[in-house]
């Protein structure tokens, strides 16, 4: 019980201090809107094309929503030494890091549903398999957050975390099938796509929203879950090795 009091308060503090600030909220609204508009204009599509863009926009909103703040919530606090306070708390490291990342996961999920709400005014979403969309969004948010955590733990400066995460995030837009099918990628870089968690998340979302997907859901979701576990375990190992010297 006492550990959960700590968990909830770490999450609540981070939400209040970092995530629910006006710049973040506006970023969460503007970013998906800008991407949808950009791809609609670029493809010369009509409003009906929004449905094919929606999985990619949802995924990119989660990716950027989760990873952008972890550099602050983890790297900045580590640098300012307030993170030591958390390490000294009598709660397991796993629970502590889960609390520290829960805010990013919630924020990422909220971001994903911004384009959905916008799209609902333009197109019919009654055929979307929400029972698949919600767990997929959750798993994308968790895997992206843990990717952000992995980056945040690997560096020591906030600017390094931001640079490193951009180095990974922007190629992922093109490598993970967000807006271009993987089949159109050169064969030599296709294996790279399958080494990135977002590829499986976008594929599952595409299946749930448009009905067509490259891999079965029984592959997409377990692989995504495996990425979540792997990235979290790797981050914890790095914290123990690099931060508890």
């Amino acid at each position, binding site marked *: 019980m006492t550990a959960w009091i700590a968990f909830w308060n770490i999450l609540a503090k981070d939400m209040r201090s970092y995530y629910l600030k006006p710049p973040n909220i506006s970023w969460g609204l503007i970013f998906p809107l800008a991407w949808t508009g950009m791809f609609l204009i670029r493809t010369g599509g009509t409003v009906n094309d929004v449905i094919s863009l929606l999985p990619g926009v949802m995924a990119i909103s989660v990716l950027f929503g989760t990873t952008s703040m972890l550099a602050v919530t983890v790297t900045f606090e580590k640098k300012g030494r307030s993170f030591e306070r958390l390490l*000294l*708390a009598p709660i397991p490291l796993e629970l502590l890091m889960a609390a520290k990342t829960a805010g990013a996961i919630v924020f990422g999920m909220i971001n994903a549903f911004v384009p959905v709400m916008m799209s609902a005014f333009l197109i019919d979403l009654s055929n979307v398999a929400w029972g698949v969309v919600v767990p997929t969004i959750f798993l994308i948010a968790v895997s992206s957050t843990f990717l952000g955590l992995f980056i945040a733990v690997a560096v020591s400066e906030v600017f390094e975390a931001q640079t490193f995460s951009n180095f990974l995030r922007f190629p992922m837009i093109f490598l993970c099938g967000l807006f271009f099918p993987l089949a159109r990628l050169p064969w030599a870089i296709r294996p790279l796509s399958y080494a990135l968690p977002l590829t499986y998340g976008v594929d599952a979302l595409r299946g749930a929203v448009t009905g067509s997907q490259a891999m079965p859901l029984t592959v997409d979701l377990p692989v995504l879950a495996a990425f979540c576990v792997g990235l979290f375990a790797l981050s914890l190992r790095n914290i123990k090795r690099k931060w508890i010297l």
Partner: protein
Amino acid sequence: MTIEVRNLSKTFADVRAVDDLSFGVQRGELFGLLGPNGAGKTTTINLLTGLARPDGGTIKIEGIDCTRDSKPSQRLIGVVPDESNLYPELSGFENLRFCAALYGLRKGKRTSRARELLRTFGLSEAAHRKFAGYSRGMKRKLTIAAGIIHQPPILFLDEPTTGIDVASARMIRALIANLNREGTTILLTTHYIEEAERLCSRIAFMVAGRIVRADSVENLMQPLHGRHVALLTLSETAVSIGRSLLAAFPDHRFAMEMPGQVRVESDRPFSVGPIVRFLEEAGIEVVEARRVRPSLEDVFVEITGIEADAMRREREKMGART
């Protein structure tokens, strides 16, 4: 023993920060680690609290082996680091409530405890101001309050009064003494010799990662009890006078503490009058002559070989930095 450390060692790259350290702290004791910067005091605290992992040795806190995993003992300890590390965006009150939550205190208890500590530390009026806007002394007080929010039986204090004004330092020392009187076991690191002397029941002198001597203040001072010291302030630097003084007063020891200041020591009581007259006859004006009580500083210098002046310069530098 509340804290038991055996053969503790820690190396960073090629620097041996803690070298085969062994000591124990009894329940209710106020134990001081005294040494210059880089002596390994903060590393020792980090090792004891779980912020660093030892290369060798064992650590036990209240009988719990914390050498590899300090989590089981973290509920029993409070830690006040050498730098204030609370959240700048939160108010003093919010910071304390958040720290209380980390130890699982329920909402009502968190609020009452935060209010109580803000009152104790004289910060009630600043309770709802952001921590970032606090003065250095206020930050230090709130950091100490955060360290004791869960009423830990053991408290680690790393340089609690470094870099703050005299009034705040006095208040903090009084609070530390009070906490100890109420039964809290305290391990304090400092490079203020007078602070250690005033507060601690036992002191360990730490140099280059090792404890060179650990004992009660009384026992440490024992060899100096028969020693008599006087300080003479001269109007000019008289380097060459030392040899003549020694020839005229062979039972005394003379040392030039700093330019223009001569320290006179003897194992027997002596009068400063003849020395002053001797100097004045040699054409050197004595501005001031006063007796001084041998202090822990003298013991520290004698045992460690580190001049108190060097420590003083260090702490002035630190004070300016923090």
